[in-house]
């Protein structure tokens, strides 16, 4: 059976939760300033109890300050809801959970599964370019001959680090039996023995890159020093951007993170073959 989860980043997102979902993902992966407050977490959990939904708290990569904010949530969660899943995108948090919150269930987040997500890859490996290019740079002429990608490398850009047995053994030691992956435009290739590790597939947004030098307000002229030291204006709660470049599909930028969108989902047979037993639906860009 494939579990259906819905991923929202704030309580306003609850309006997207419809019948058919059996789990709520709540939180965010990309910015410690967007870690939910304890009251918000409690409200989300109350909603889940009322609507008979399972719950996963989604957490970002964090500094020591962010770690301390997450600790406050985990201190409460471990007593109020032992066994709750926490999606971890920071090995420091995983370390802490393993030492201090043994009743919390960690899940390896998609920032740590290390897929190759550049949207140009799909064209590169699917179309196998035959042409040669010629251009002038300064006083020199450049001729680039295309070279065919060998068949044996065709899976290379579709893999994730969880294909590596040594990583799966390590995850077991840290009590992790689930990992999260993006639905890559070039397709995914997972080689995981049955029941060795469960996998969740994110749909339709996949992340490409993220930054802490967040030029977050797209309505203002960019400023020196960016957001690192100026006050965060939480523009990610007000704006999103569509980015176009002729070599890529449309990209989506919200706050400090860039995403691609893939609306094609692999067949149920392929999902099951890849060990995927959960789809994480993102009704909006997850930030």
């Amino acid at each position, binding site marked *: 059976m494939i579990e259906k989860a819905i991923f929202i980043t704030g309580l306003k997102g609850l309006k997207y939760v419809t019948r058919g979902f059996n789990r709520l993902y709540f939180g965010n992966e990309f910015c410690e*300033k967007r870690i939910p407050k304890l009251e918000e977490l409690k409200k989300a959990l109350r909603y889940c109890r009322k609507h008979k939904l399972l719950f996963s708290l989604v957490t970002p*990569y*964090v*500094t*020591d*300050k*962010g*770690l301390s904010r997450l600790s406050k949530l985990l201190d409460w969660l471990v007593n109020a809801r032992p066994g709750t899943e926490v999606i971890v995108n*920071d*090995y*420091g*948090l*995983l*370390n802490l959970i393993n030492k201090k919150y043994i009743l919390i269930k960690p899940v390896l987040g998609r920032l740590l599964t*290390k897929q190759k997500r*550049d949207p140009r890859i799909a064209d*590169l490996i699917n179309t196998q*370019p035959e*042409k040669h290019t010629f251009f002038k*740079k300064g006083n*020199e002429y*450049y001729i*680039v*001959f*295309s*070279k065919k*990608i*060998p068949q*044996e*490398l065709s899976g*290379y850009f579709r893999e994730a*680090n969880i*294909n590596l047995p*040594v*990583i799966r053994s*390590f995850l077991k030691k840290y009590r992790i039996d689930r990992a999260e992956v993006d639905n890559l435009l070039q397709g995914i290739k997972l080689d995981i023995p049955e029941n060795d590790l469960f996998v969740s597939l994110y749909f339709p947004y996949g992340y*490409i*890159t*993220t*930054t*802490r*030098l967040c030029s977050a307000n*797209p309505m203002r002229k*960019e400023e*020196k020093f960016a957001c*690192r*030291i100026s006050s*965060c204006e939480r523009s990610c*709660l*007000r*704006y999103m*951007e569509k*980015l*176009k*470049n002729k*070599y*890529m599909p449309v*990209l989506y*930028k919200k706050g400090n993170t*860039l995403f691609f969108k893939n609306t094609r989902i692999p067949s149920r047979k392929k999902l099951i073959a890849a060990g995927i037993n959960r789809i994480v639906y993102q009704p909006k860009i997850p930030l």
Partner: protein
Amino acid sequence: MKILSAFSKKDEVLPLIDAGADELYCGIVPYAWEAKYSVFDTLNRREGYGANFSSFNDLSAAVRSAHNREVPVFITMNGLYTPGQYPLIRRIIHSIELSGADGLIIADIGLLLSLRKWGFRGQVHMGTGGTTFNSQTALFYKQLGACRIILDRQLTVGEIKDIARRSAAKVDLEVFILNTLCSNVDGFCTFYHGLPVASSQVNALNRKNMKVRFFKSYDPDYQGHGCSLNFSKEVFDLNGKKLKSVALKKAFLQGDIHKSCGVCALFDFNKMKIKALKIVERGAPLESKLRDTRFVRQAVDVLKKKRSLSRGDFISAMRSLYCQTYGFKACSGFSCYYPSVFAKEGGK
């Protein structure tokens, strides 16, 4: 604080040590890797032979030369590898051990775990690709066998201080001090680096003084790293209403990354017991590497020799030194690694 300088040729070793390097690092792309993967994806996040050794004999000679001056050499193996690559990676690492190099700079947790399993005896430094943003992550990598942690480029001085206070006594910490302040979080950025059209690489593949340069690529349309591409942008509110269009901007704010600098933070780093300062740019010409190393050496020497300098005076001295060294009229701050040195850190 040790100064860690980059090199890519054996002839660069002694000049860099004379310029003030305490430690050295470099990369190698052996022909066995090149034959299979070309620069399809990178072994160590620097493409081509302009930035890398290709021969283990040359690497061994470089290591011997550095060791004669009691300077350690670390080798970058900081790619993210797939299972099929591990047999070759293991062979490459065995050859690196035979070269006498002192250790590896890595990024992949799979490799960290494998090194322990393979009985690797050298030092292991977890690179910026390991995304260490907090003290627990530093201690986590230490438990798994890393003896030095290279902190993420985008941390503020205050955040580094928090990490150092809780972990510097247990594991060595290294910070970036010069060049290549990426606009994205290095270890979380999944943009394809592939094959940029850089003259150093093309020159390596062609004879000198030729007007026409040839090379082969899996990706002849390659336009550059994703972070350096320009996009046309449309800004929307969250109800989907279009607010504005912007022509050709990079996805994220980016200064002149090749001149990015963090020496003003040395005063604070010294107090935090930071072990090493990294100068980036393995592929830069030697004169540029020497200038950078001398610059950081002068900065560290100011700190050592003029102990009575206040923090403010030290920062002023560093800004002058930067302008003097690189020929700028003023330090703009736009490519500053640690701008929080100058301004109050904020954020809600």
